[in-house]
């Protein structure tokens, strides 16, 4: 039965009620509804969504419920193993490790989301403009991206974070500067293919401004790809932030981040392995979930690109 076009076969309506909601089909499912249906069938992606929902509650609501502050030291209770008072034990300054893992997650997830948003904004606007304007401007803009791509970014990021006053704003700038490049390339490719389609020609012949065409007609049509790539950027950003915090170059103490917590654990594996295992577990679980969700979203939004 041709589900996409039930009107073509009148007999379809007389069949026993199918499992699919016919009203929804008649009104025409949008790209997003379609994608949602496909995503719901992907158990790994749905599981990841639940894990991420739990993680968000854990990190953003958890610290409010905790009786301890993440910065409150207690030098008589340093390096305790997990107990009923301190579920995850305490760190080298006697701070409650559960509270620190929750707050650290808040920092890591927060940085991940905000820096991704920043890099998305730059990447989408830059890529869309380059592709839409085309010609020499496009060539120059993309050459700039190529040169930046060739730079060893890890090295510059470390350099920036050591040399200048470390602040969370600099962290955002640095991460955003790294992550927008790929986004710009992807968006440019998409826009180039959309640009040739009739509805854009129609908008041009109606005399709309370039700005309006880019913002209202082209960007909404690349949102699917952007959404997929954004979900995959969040873990990359979290990774970069934790990498910097691990080296002592990211978020500054007493503020914890999963990277700095893992560093503390790595320094104490001989005697206090739980200081490593617990933050590493939460960190890895979040990264897995984000990656699985990203893969699931890609399959859902663009079934053709599915890997095999």
């Amino acid at each position, binding site marked *: 039965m041709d589900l996409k076009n039930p009107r073509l076969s009148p007999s379809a309506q007389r069949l026993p009620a199918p499992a699919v909601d016919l009203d929804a089909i008649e009104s025409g499912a949008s790209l997003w509804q379609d994608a949602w249906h496909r995503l719901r069938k992907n158990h790994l992606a749905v599981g990841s969504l639940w894990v991420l929902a739990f993680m968000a509650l854990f990190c953003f609501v958890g610290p409010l419920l905790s009786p301890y502050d993440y910065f409150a030291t207690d030098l008589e209770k340093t390096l305790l193993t997990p107990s009923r008072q301190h579920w995850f034990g305490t760190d080298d300054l006697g701070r409650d490790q559960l509270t620190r893992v929750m707050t650290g997650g808040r920092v890591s997830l927060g940085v991940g989301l905000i820096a991704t948003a920043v890099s998305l904004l730059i990447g989408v606007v830059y890529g869309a403009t380059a592709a839409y304007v085309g010609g020499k401007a496009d060539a120059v803009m993309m050459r700039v991206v190529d*040169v930046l791509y*060739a*730079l*060893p970014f*890890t*090295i*510059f990021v*470390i*350099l*920036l974070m*050591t*040399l*200048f*006053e470390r602040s969370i704003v600099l962290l955002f700038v640095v991460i955003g500067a790294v992550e927008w490049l790929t986004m710009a390339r992807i968006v440019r490719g998409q826009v180039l293919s959309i640009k040739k389609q009739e509805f854009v020609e129609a908008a041009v012949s109606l005399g709309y401004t370039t700005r309006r065409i880019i913002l209202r007609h082209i960007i909404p049509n690349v949102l699917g790809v952007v959404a997929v790539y954004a979900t995959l950027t969040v*873990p990359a950003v979290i*990774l970069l932030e*934790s*990498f910097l915090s*691990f*080296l002592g170059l990211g978020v500054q103490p007493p503020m914890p981040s999963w*990277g700095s917590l*893992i*560093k503390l*654990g*790595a320094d104490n*594996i*001989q005697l206090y*392995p739980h200081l*490593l*295992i617990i933050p*590493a577990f939460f*960190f*890895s679980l979040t*990264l*897995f979930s984000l*990656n699985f969700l990203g893969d699931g979203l890609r399959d859902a939004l663009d079934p053709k690109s599915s*890997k*095999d």
Partner: protein
Amino acid sequence: MFKFIGRRVAQSVIVLFVIITVTFFMVRFAPGDPFSAERKMPEHIKQSLMAHYGLDQPLLVQYGRYLGNLLKGDLGPSFTGTRSVNQILAAAFPVSLELGGWALLIALGIGLPVGIVAAVFRNTLADYIPMSMAMVGICLPTFVLGPILALVFGVWLGWFNVSGWFMPLDRVLPATTIGLVYAAVIARITRGGMLEVLSQDFIRTAQAKGVPFPRIIVVHTLKGGLLPVVSFLGPALAGIISGSFVVETIFQIPGMGREFVNSAFNRDYTLVLGTVILYAALITAANLLVDVVQVVLNPRLRFEDS
């Protein structure tokens, strides 16, 4: 072909030049100087030190002089300690190179066979199990994998030292840490590349002619199927080189990564520049090499961007 190589070499030189210039001025415009780190020294001593190293000259003069010395292969004196930058890097570089070499060997040694087997036995357990493990490997960053390997094999099982770089066995954990992550990526890329080739017509023709299956894989599929791996080697080399920062910190290895981070903390201008230039040269050379090899293996690329 020679035109292509010439153009890519020119491009690499430009990139290197940009990197050197950006780093030079970034280091100089950052607050602080090499002599402000520890206790305060009398102003006149600081003045004469600055004059001794030529730091009192106008910035552009310093820049010109640095480039001149660089062309002669002289990276200048280090501001901390008595050794020159050339000496420090000559001591640290072989360590990082050895670490990177082992890591690459592990990455290819595990990644390629796993990817090939997964593609050949597609959609069986020999495909699913290694590929889900590869997914896990891709998500795990080195700074999580490293401490966990050290915990399991160093502390709990006691097979290796937790840190240090003295005995041959000390190479195992750091190299595995870097290698495993890339093995996972290489396995996935290999599988994808092999499947792509296996689905093409000439493979079916070969099967129809009755060519034995192992021969199809070895003779007809491998060359094309491994192309994507070759193009991944450029980024992989760059990643392995810069991934060594974390691993050298975790396992206390006296390599370039540690020198780089320390020199940046100390505002040791010349050492910072020296390490960045060496890193950048390595990465650029790796990318260049990979591009050329790719064109040699895949003649279609030659006509693409003219």
